[in-house]
Structures are given as structure tokens and as C-alpha cells.
């Protein structure tokens, strides 16, 4: 097959794969953004737990980050995907028998699994960032009579963001790439899954996997530009 007809396979018409790849790109971005949001919440909880005075909270957070970072992402994804679905089904079956054949939304399960994985890495990034805020700042806030919540909102969070941004940016880039793992679940229409489908149907493996890779690269390029702009904005007081 010559070059021109290869690219005609990518057309946006009913016979082309163009539109499917755009849909895949949208799913990949949606999964990444949702999983990243989950990991931000878990990261903030995890970092607070690691820095808390409660031994139990510290212990749980340590087990969480150590386990997640020692296990392959693929294994964790499958484990959480299956167990999360089973747990929800079990709870629902206790409530009513109507939920017997309830199916967990694969999108939600994948987001939960990816977010859980990202949360462990986010915990470490946020812990480091909170520790880099000079202690005097927090003492000054206390001396000015700020409540704990106000200190968090006005002093810790805004300054922490500046220190955490490089790590958070890297984790966002990992989140977009890790989202490709959900293609192995076989029921999510993400970018890599589209590459898999298109190449299996047309037998042009090299071409369609390259298309998927180029689209991932596009996500990375745009993300890097946004991260650089955010960094410049957060560091504007330190030039």
C-alpha cells in the first residue's frame, strides 16, 4: 500500500480512523485529568498524614506509598480494577438484590485505579513541598492570630504550590502516559486502544501505533508549555 492510501485510512469519513483517534484522544485526556484530580486529593491527604503527629496516620501513609511504589503499575491497575468492582458489587448486593447484575463503569474503575497509584507519588511531592516552607512563615501566621485553616489556605497552600509544581508537572506527564495502560482492560476507548484496534483491523501496525504515539507526543508538548507558563506565573515574585 502506498503512502497516499495509508493516510486515506486516517480520513475523518465513515471509512477512516481519523474520528476514532480523536475520540481516543479525548478519552485519554478525560481519564488523565480525572485520575490526576483523584491523585491530588489523595496526595494532600497522604502528605497531611505523613506530617501528622498521629503514629497510626503516619503508618498507614507509609504503607500506602511504599506498596504503591514497589509494585508495577500494570499489576496495581488490574488488582484495584478487579477488587474495586467486586467491592462495589458486594456493597450493592447487601442493599438490594436488584443490583445482582450491576456492572461497574470501566471508566470510573480505571480512574480510581490510576488515581490511587498517582496519589502515592503525589504524597511524596506534596510532603517535600510542605517541608520546604520556612517554619518562620507558619509561626508568623500563628502569631498574627490566623486559624489553622486560614494558615493552610493563605500561607501553606500558595507557597507549597511553588515548590511542588516541578514534581506535580512530572506527575501530570506520567499520568497521561500511564493512562495508556487502561487499554489492556479491553473496554476503554482510549488512544492506545484505538491504535490497537485500527492496526488489528487494517494490519498496518507500524503506521497506526505511530499515529497513537504522535498524538501522545502532542499531549506532552502542550502540557510542557502549560507547565512552563504556570511555573513562570508562580515564581513571578522571586525574579
Amino acid at each position, binding site marked *: 500500500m502506498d503512502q497516499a492510501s495509508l493516510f486515506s485510512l486516517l480520513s475523518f469519513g465513515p471509512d477512516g480512523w481519523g474520528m476514532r483517534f480523536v475520540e481516543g484522544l479525548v478519552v485519554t485526556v478525560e481519564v488523565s485529568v480525572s485520575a490526576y484530580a483523584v491523585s491530588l486529593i489523595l496526595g494532600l491527604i497522604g502528605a497531611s498524614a505523613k506530617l501528622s503527629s498521629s503514629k497510626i496516620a503516619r503508618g498507614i501513609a507509609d504503607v500506602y506509598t511504599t*506498596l504503591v511504589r*514497589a*509494585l*508495577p*503499575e*500494570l*499489576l496495581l491497575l*488490574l*488488582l484495584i480494577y*478487579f*477488587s474495586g468492582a*467486586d467491592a462495589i458489587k458486594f456493597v450493592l448486593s447487601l442493599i438490594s438484590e436488584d443490583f445482582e447484575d450491576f456492572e461497574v463503569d470501566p471508566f470510573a474503575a480505571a480512574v480510581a485505579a490510576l488515581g490511587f497509584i498517582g496519589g502515592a507519588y503525589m504524597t511524596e511531592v506534596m510532603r517535600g513541598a510542605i517541608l520546604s516552607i520556612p517554619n518562620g512563615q507558619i509561626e508568623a501566621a500563628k502569631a498574627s492570630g490566623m486559624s489553622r485553616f486560614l494558615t493552610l489556605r493563605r500561607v501553606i497552600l500558595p507557597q507549597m504550590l511553588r515548590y511542588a509544581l516541578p514534581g506535580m508537572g512530572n506527575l501530570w*506527564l506520567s499520568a497521561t*502516559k*500511564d493512562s*495508556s*495502560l487502561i*487499554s*489492556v482492560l479491553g473496554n476503554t476507548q482510549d488512544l*492506545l486502544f484505538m*491504535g*490497537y484496534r485500527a*492496526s488489528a483491523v487494517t*494490519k*498496518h*501496525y*507500524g503506521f497506526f*501505533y*505511530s499515529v*497513537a*504515539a504522535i498524538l*501522545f*507526543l502532542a499531549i*506532552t*508538548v502542550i502540557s510542557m508549555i502549560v507547565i512552563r507558563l504556570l511555573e513562570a506565573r508562580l515564581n513571578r515574585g522571586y525574579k
Partner: protein
Amino acid sequence: MDESLSFFLSIAPTLLAAVPVTLTLTFFSALIGNSLAVPVAVASLSPNPLLRYPSAFYIFVMRGTPLLAQTYLIYYGLGELLPGTWVQKSFLWPYLRDGFWYAIFAFSLNTAGYTGEILRGAIMAVPKGEIEAARAYGFSKGLIFWRVTLPRAIQICLPTMTGETILLLKATSLASLITVWEVMGTARQIQKVTFRVYEPLIAAGLLYIIMVFVLTRLMIIVERRINRHRLAPV
């Protein structure tokens, strides 16, 4: 619970037999990938734009696309190109049908990109005075690189490389998706045969935790050995 334990024991030998596959994948990918990282890093620091730009682009592509996409591209892409060419008739063909070699190829190229970027930073961090001292002794450019710049750069980035090696060990689980029966692939195979969802995955997870722990310990020994001149004499 008792029944679960006996199930764990029954699948343990099969899973343990897959550990060497995971370790060989990691070892060869780290060896080839880190060796390739040296020319990648050197080229990315070269004043010659014909070396610098391709190297920067290579690092960018390897770090900017998912490893799974790279693995599929190499496995299925080469699998589409190679049959029907001279390669099929050569003595290498029996090996080239095996996913194992494609996995090593893909992981090595990926590692070369990531480590190349780390090494680039480390080479730039080598103190200028040390290179000037070597020059003052009349070292040639090549000798300076092999005797001063590279060893010092490796020393500087070793802790980061430890982390990268552990990431690589975990990433070898992706080889299960291109028919390599390492620990992850074997666990999924057991899942399919026994219709048990959790036990094979949990058992495989335990093996990964042990491997990561042992690898971390080993790398600490290597780090200590390389930095032995900086440690206090005992």
C-alpha cells in the same frame, strides 16, 4: 483462609520459575540501555547541531510517549516489516519471533532516553576544575572523558539511576502484553487457568516487592563502593 494458603503454595513454583525471566529482562535492558545512554548524553551536549538536535529529539520522543506504545510499535511494527525480508532466512529468525527480544529492544531504547537525559545533567555538573586539572596533566580529550568526566558523572547521578533501575524492573511487567511469560504474564496465565482473580496477582505482587527490596539493597552496596573514598575511614 486455609484453602487460600494452599492455593498460594500450589502456584508458588510456577511463579518463582518466572522470576529469572523478569530479572534477565531487567538486567539486559539496563545494560544495553545505560550503555546507549552514554552516546545519547554526549551527543546532546555536542556543539555540532547535527548531533545535538537528533539526540534531543530522541530523548524527547522516548520520554514523551508511553512505554507501552513504544513496546507495541516495536513488537507489532517490526513484526510487520521483517517477514519476507532477508532476516527471515537468517539464523537470527528463531530468536526474532520471540517477544522476549522485542521487549529487551523496546526497554533498552526507552532506558537510553531516560538515562541519557539524567547523564546529560550529571556531565554538566562535573566540577570544571577537575577537567582543567586533567587537561593540565596533558590528558587527551578522549582520556579526559573516560577517566574523569564519565566516572564522575556516573557517581553524581547514581542515586537517580537506582530509582530508574527500579522503575525499569517494574516496567518489565509490560512484556506480559507481548507474550513474554515473566512474573506478571505468568500470574495472568494462572488467572485464566484457575479462574482465581486475586491470589495470582497478590502472589506476583509479593515477588515484585521482594525483587525491588533486594535490588534497592544491591544498589546501596554499589553506591557505597563507588563513593568509598568519601566515606569516613573505619
